[in-house]
């Protein structure tokens, strides 16, 4: 009798122990940033202070752009409402400090993912939402056809970026000297270039196209054919919050997967209602509840992302397509169409 009781106790203890061991697995889906965002009811999203294509305010003061769409997508996933975003416009100079200090939850500000930023600045590079390379824009009247002819030229650009390093390296590699004049804000740099203080403007290819669109007569300006660097622009989070990083990363993957599978803002409801049998499609549209729990989010998170901002291609078209800046998809196309945008499998 007593030995039986002892056995029962032991069994009960073992069960409890197993249960307790099982608990941390559940508790692992915990993110300080996610909790803070949920508690605040608002996502603090660091974006550019104003550059067409990536992040800018329209005439009514509403934020728009590729990076802004990502902020909205994250808010939709995490908070259930794409409008619950506080946009924090940050300059190239302060962006990383603002992120490190916790003033923003995520930095999506056409920033290049680099070695130093990963290792030395203690930032966590999440995903590349735009493949660019540094390009030059000059006045057509200068009659320059290639950036190799820029010896002695002065180029306006932004301070605190990879740009000035690239230019120096490019000059050294080609045996020429390109002078750089450094500004804090894009609009100041544009104005100086416009006024002829510099011979041209240099930035990532997407931003150069944006800069050209803000010139008084964009037709006076041309973008030189050379791309002198690799600028994978993307999302940065603070180091040390893996789970929050996962949410950000998979938000990007959902946008790409949606385009890959032909799901758009417009047809998402229809496809969802038709009860798709494809397991990937089920996960994409949030019909597989267990799947989303891994992220610590509810089942419909991915569906809400698509409903809020559409898929990657839709966003690109809206801000860089022919009706906007007229920048060809190029490397930013899906891998299936010859580009570099490749979503990890939703599995």
């Amino acid at each position: 009798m007593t030995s039986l009781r002892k056995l029962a106790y032991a069994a009960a203890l073992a069960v409890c122990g197993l249960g307790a061991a099982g608990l941390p697995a559940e508790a692992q889906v915990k993110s300080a940033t996610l909790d803070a965002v949920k508690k605040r009811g608002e996502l603090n999203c660091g974006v550019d202070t104003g550059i067409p294509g990536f992040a800018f305010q329209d005439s009514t003061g509403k934020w728009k752009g590729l990076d802004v769409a990502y902020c909205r997508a994250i808010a939709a996933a995490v908070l259930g409402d794409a409008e619950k975003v506080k946009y924090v416009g940050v300059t190239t100079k302060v962006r990383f400090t603002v992120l490190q200090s916790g003033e923003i939850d995520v930095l999506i500000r056409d920033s290049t993912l680099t070695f130093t930023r990963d290792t030395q600045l203690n930032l966590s590079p999440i995903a590349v939402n735009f493949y660019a390379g540094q390009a030059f824009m000059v006045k057509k009247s200068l009659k320059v056809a290639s950036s190799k002819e820029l010896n002695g030229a002065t180029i306006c650009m932004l301070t605190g970026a990879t740009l000035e390093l690239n230019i120096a390296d490019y000059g050294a590699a080609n045996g020429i000297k390109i002078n750089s004049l450094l500004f804090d804000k894009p609009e100041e740099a544009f104005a100086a270039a416009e006024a002829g203080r510099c011979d041209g403007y240099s930035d990532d290819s997407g931003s150069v196209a944006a800069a050209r669109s803000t010139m008084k007569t964009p037709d006076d300006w041309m973008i030189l054919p050379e791309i002198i660097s690799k600028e994978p622009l993307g999302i940065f989070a603070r180091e040390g919050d893996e789970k929050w990083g996962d949410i950000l990363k998979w938000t990007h993957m959902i946008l790409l997967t949606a385009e890959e599978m032909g799901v758009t803002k417009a047809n998402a409801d229809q496809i969802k209602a038709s009860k798709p049998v494809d397991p990937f499609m089920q996960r994409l549209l949030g019909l597989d509840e267990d799947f989303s729990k891994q992220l610590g989010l509810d089942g419909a998170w991915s569906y809400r992302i698509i409903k809020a901002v559409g898929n990657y291609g839709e966003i690109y078209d809206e801000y860089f397509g022919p009706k906007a800046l007229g920048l060809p998809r190029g490397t930013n196309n899906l891998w299936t169409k010859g580009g570099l945008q490749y979503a990890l499998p939703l599995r």
Partner: protein
Amino acid sequence: MNFGFAFLSQRTGFDIPFHVVPWSTADSYGRALWVCLLNTLLAAAIGIVLGSLLGFLLGVMRLSANWLARSLSLAIIEIVRNTPQLLQIIFWYVVMIQALPPPRNGLALPGGMILSVRGLNMPSIEMGTAGLWPFLLLVASLCLVPVFRGLRRRRRVFGWAAPLLPAIALVVVLLSVDHLDYPTLRGFNYVGGVVVPPELIALVAGLSLYMSAFVAEIVRASLQGIAKGQREAASSLGLSGAQALFLVILPQALRVMIPQLTNQYLNLTKSTSLGAAIAYPELVQIYAGTVLNQTGRALETMFLVMIIFLGINLAISGFMAWYNARVAIVER
């Protein structure tokens, strides 16, 4: 986070667009500190000199019997004093780069100078093989002038050298000039000579004009603070208005001004950091901007910039305190 200054010996890899000492992208962060410290000091020094002169002029004009001079001075002081300094600096910069012609049709000024949106290009003096020695000789002879004047006063030997020595040195300098290097348009920009970039001009204009308004008020207050009897006594001795001002009133007023002027000089020095807003590569723009971003050393760069500004300002106030003590009335 590990705190340390080892990064100062690392290679920078970026360009500093304006530098008074040689700079290349292969230089270290430590060298960058020196380069932009000199840029800061240059802007501060020119700003302090110009601002003091202009402030003096405005202050004296403010008390002038001439209605036009008085009102003009008042208008300038009130406008300058009551608008933000940063705004003024940006204003001068925008005005300059909008108004000046592109380099290809730069304005030719007398003496081979050319003014364009790229700045003021001036011919530089090339000394050939003689190098800087003639200049050193000139400086040395100027330094010796008081000594020789003392000798002359006491009718000692070599007294004749007081006026002659600098003149001889000047002739040596002129003779050893190899050629003047005139700026010429080649490719995108002017090559040769020296250039004062528009950023420096706008920064100095903004800083010195702003300071001059405050200096003007200090000058006015100090002049008014001199007892009326001093002026009356001067005129009773038959001194003219200008003579009374420069020989009797100003020397006394100067003593009262020095502590307040010191404040203004310190303020101007700190305000050179506003140059960052108009792409002038000074300490704050390069260190608190570029270097901070490239290295991620936020604490160290900020610490360096603060320590350096503290150092410069302590030096200025130390000098002014010494000068103040020197000119103070010795009371017995």
